[in-house]
């Protein structure tokens, strides 16, 4: 070791309104496994996109120095030619093509007008052996599991003569054995001289494979990189560096209380959900939780912990298969089979994905506001009172301070914060008793966040209950009366507002991981 393979020098990358990377310095030695650690949104993926040319030269400031030269990648193809291979979190394989076809997509063997299939399959099986995948290269991608798909991605990278392998959360969708096999393989590659960068927030995995650890937080590198055997590396130090930011006065005041004496609004017992496609995979495992009237309950956890899946499965089984367990609303058992029945049982789920399954962007604020409660603006036989509908939409826009010229404005033309308010208005108009807010402030600016928090406080003041799923720990801490911690499909902790700190939450997540891998 000793030779610097990659040096990212004073990298700054801004998106409209956000500084995603702020003067980041990052150095990787040849032949090491370098872990890049940070919370969701810390800038890890953005940094790798700068490196790979996804964000082309010129769209950032600073220099990428690779193999001794400043590189000016215009696209991924150029960085691949230099031996940089990125394996993304979401696998980019085409299900109905074979392993070999996927591996050489865009790089087909033979000539442009005459693909040499024999060579292609032969080469493919060579690389499959290298990653220890015992499958025919003629197998369709859809017929192998995610773990094996990950290996195909790695084989694909090897086939491009990769010198620097970048793995973005490689184990997030793998089980324990698969994860271990993958990590061992990286160690193997290291022996053969391969350099790897592994992005992860699974601390036990990092301590297992990494030679050096760099930590990103809010778009900046925190402290010097930690080198194994030289610096002291403990979970505590990593966690502290990951989350240690100041909690300023970003939340509206509301007196936090212990609600354990108050009546329970919603209670969930023994809730188990299986993945809709891979029906043997448990997404939520025997979960119990409850929320009292007037309470804000935070649900913390890393991405992929199963929080969204849990909430959607509660909301009229809109996610998952083979759902089992009991739901009690105000002490009475309920069985909502679809979203309609969930709404009738006074549950609302404000989705994390505004554009995907939250709003109809091509329709007006008015139409979006009434969508979940059409009965509220129409007669018994389904005739809409459009004047009333207009009035309702306008009332909510005024109440939530939605900035719009009129409620006939298309939602697609609003800013993220205002879209979020329309989404909230829609669900408030459905008049639920329990509101599940999934990432209610994702991708919106600080001012709008504050307003959303005020709305949450108003809701609980009216006696409604709010479940807030969020990946932003400060937000969970700032708003919640009680906090549940979820990890890998299970509830791994429950903390009162006093007990909860960023460190104690992270510790709950980490300790369950260690317990599992031990």
């Amino acid at each position, binding site marked *: 070791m000793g030779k610097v393979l990659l040096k990212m020098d004073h990298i700054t990358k801004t998106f409209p309104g956000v500084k995603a990377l702020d003067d980041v310095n990052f150095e990787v030695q040849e032949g090491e496994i370098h872990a890049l650690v940070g919370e969701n949104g810390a800038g890890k993926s953005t940094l790798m996109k700068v490196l790979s040319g996804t964000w082309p030269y010129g769209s950032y400031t600073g220099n990428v120095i690779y193999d001794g030269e400043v590189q000016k990648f215009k696209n991924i193809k150029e960085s691949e030619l230099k031996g940089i291979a990125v394996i993304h979190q979401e696998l980019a394989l085409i299900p109905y093509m074979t392993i070999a076809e996927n591996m050489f997509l865009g790089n087909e063997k033979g000539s442009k007008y005459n693909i040499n299939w024999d060579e292609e399959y032969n080469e493919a099986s060579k690389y499959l052996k290298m990653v220890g995948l015992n499958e025919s290269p003629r197998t369709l991608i859809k017929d192998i599991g995610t773990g094996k798909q990950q290996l195909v991605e790695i084989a694909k990278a090897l086939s491009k003569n990769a010198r620097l392998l970048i793995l973005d959360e490689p184990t997030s969708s793998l089980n324990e054995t698969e994860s271990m096999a993958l990590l061992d393989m990286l160690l193997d590659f290291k022996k053969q001289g391969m350099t790897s960068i592994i992005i992860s927030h699974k601390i036990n995995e990092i301590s297992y494979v990494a030679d050096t650890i760099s930590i990103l937080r809010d778009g900046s590198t925190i402290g010097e990189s930690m080198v194994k055997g030289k610096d002291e590396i403990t979970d505590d130090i990593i966690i502290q560096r990951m989350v240690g930011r100041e909690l300023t006065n970003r939340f509206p005041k509301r007196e936090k209380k212990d609600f354990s004496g108050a009546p329970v609004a919603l209670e969930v017992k023994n809730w188990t959900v299986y993945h809709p496609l891979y029906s043997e995979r448990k997404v939520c495992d025997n979960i119990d939780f409850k929320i009292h009237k007037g309470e804000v309950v935070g649900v913390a956890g890393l991405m992929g912990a199963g929080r969204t899946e849990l909430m959607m499965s509660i909301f009229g089984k809109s996610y998952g298969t083979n759902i089992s367990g009991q739901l009690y609303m105000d002490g009475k058992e309920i069985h909502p089979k679809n*979203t309609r029945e969930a709404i009738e049982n006074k549950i609302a789920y404000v989705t994390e994905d505004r554009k995907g399954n939250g709003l109809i962007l091509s329709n007006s604020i008015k139409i979006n506001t009434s969508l979940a409660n059409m009965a509220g603006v129409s007669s018994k036989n389904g005739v809409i009172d459009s*004047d009333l509908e207009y009035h309702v939409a306008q009332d909510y826009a005024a109440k939530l301070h939605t900035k719009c010229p009129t409620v006939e404005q298309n939602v697609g033309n609003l800013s993220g914060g205002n879209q979020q308010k329309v989404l909230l208005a829609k669900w408030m108009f459905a008049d639920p008793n329990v509101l599940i807010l999934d990432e209610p402030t994702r991708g919106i600016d600080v001012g709008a966040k504050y307003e959303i928090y005020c709305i949450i406080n108003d809701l609980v003041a009216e006696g409604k209950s709010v479940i807030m799923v969020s990946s932003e720990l400060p937000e969970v801490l700032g708003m919640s009366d009680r906090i549940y911690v979820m990890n890998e499909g299970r509830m791994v902790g429950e903390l009162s507002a006093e007990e909860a700190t960023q460190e104690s939450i992270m510790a709950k997540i980490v300790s369950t991981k260690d317990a599992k891998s031990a």
Partner: protein
Amino acid sequence: MNVKSVLTKYAMTIATVIVIIFFTVATQGKLLFPQNVNNVIAQNAYVFVIAMGMLLCILTGGNIDLSVGSIVGLVGAVGAILMVNHNVAIPVAMLICLVIGTLIGAWQAYWIAYQRIPPFITTLAGMYMWRGLSNVILQGLTISPMPDAFNNIFNSYVPDFFGGNGFNITCFAVGIIICVAYIGAQLSARAKRIKKGYEAGSFSAMMAKTVIICAVVIFFMYKLAKYQGIPVILIWVAVIVLIYTYITSKTTTGRYFYAVGGNEAATEMSGINTNKVYFIAYTNVAFLSSIAGFIIMARLNSANPTAGTNYEMDAIASCFIGGASAYGGIGTTTGVVIGAILMGVLNLGMSIMGVDMNWQRVVKGGVLLIAVIFDVVSKRKSS
């Protein structure tokens, strides 16, 4: 609203007016002869009817129903066999036809809505199957004539109760009554809004729109009055268009078509049964196709194995020319009516001018393409 946004919003209406003026000049005024005005409605009645149903399908996500022309053929075949060969009472025969047409629709709709078979394929299959069946039923022959009593339900004229000579006073009076009722409705809706403190919009804009609409209605009814009065088929078309306008703009069911096309996932998360929305759309279009089947039977005074061929294309073209989005979620019945009129005027104008049938197709295809390009590009600019 500035000039540009008015132009964008009413682009197709303006285009239709230009096309009408063009053909009026090119045919030395023949286009606006009373008989020709009457023919625009009579020849294209089926397009209006089917397009109302097609619009609902397109709204759900740009999906089209290719089987409607074959359903027109099959319903005609069944109706003719029952009425002509078996002397079944006309109302009974019509009822049977409607039930058969609707059941066919429900069959297709089931696969589309509940098994999620792509509509294009399901209805393509239907297009072959129902066309084949209508041939089988008719044994490849044409059945005619249809009973007069049946033809009159669609093909006659409302008699003049005032005995006008060469000018149908009833027809013109109805035109005036429609205008008065329309103005009254607009004013009372406005008064109600102001009373409740809702936004009412500009008075002059409303009046301008009202005056234009009334002028068109009066002119149209005047022309019809100079021919044979109100054709019964106009009443059919008007009633069906009004019902579907009401459904799409005023009812929750109508709203769901737009919601599903706009964002199906969001609609489902809002507690709406999206499968049912698809089911209604595809069952309904077949129901309307059955009515179109009657209209065609009466107009041709016969049933033949090729009746209804390519009708799906006319309906689809009218919807897209009328501003329905090829991605779903956008489109109005008024737009579709304008689209159908534009197509009808093109057909008629070119026929009067003696343009070759094949060149007519070239022109219609070009208009369809331009309309959709305009729609897509103008949306891209505004977003």
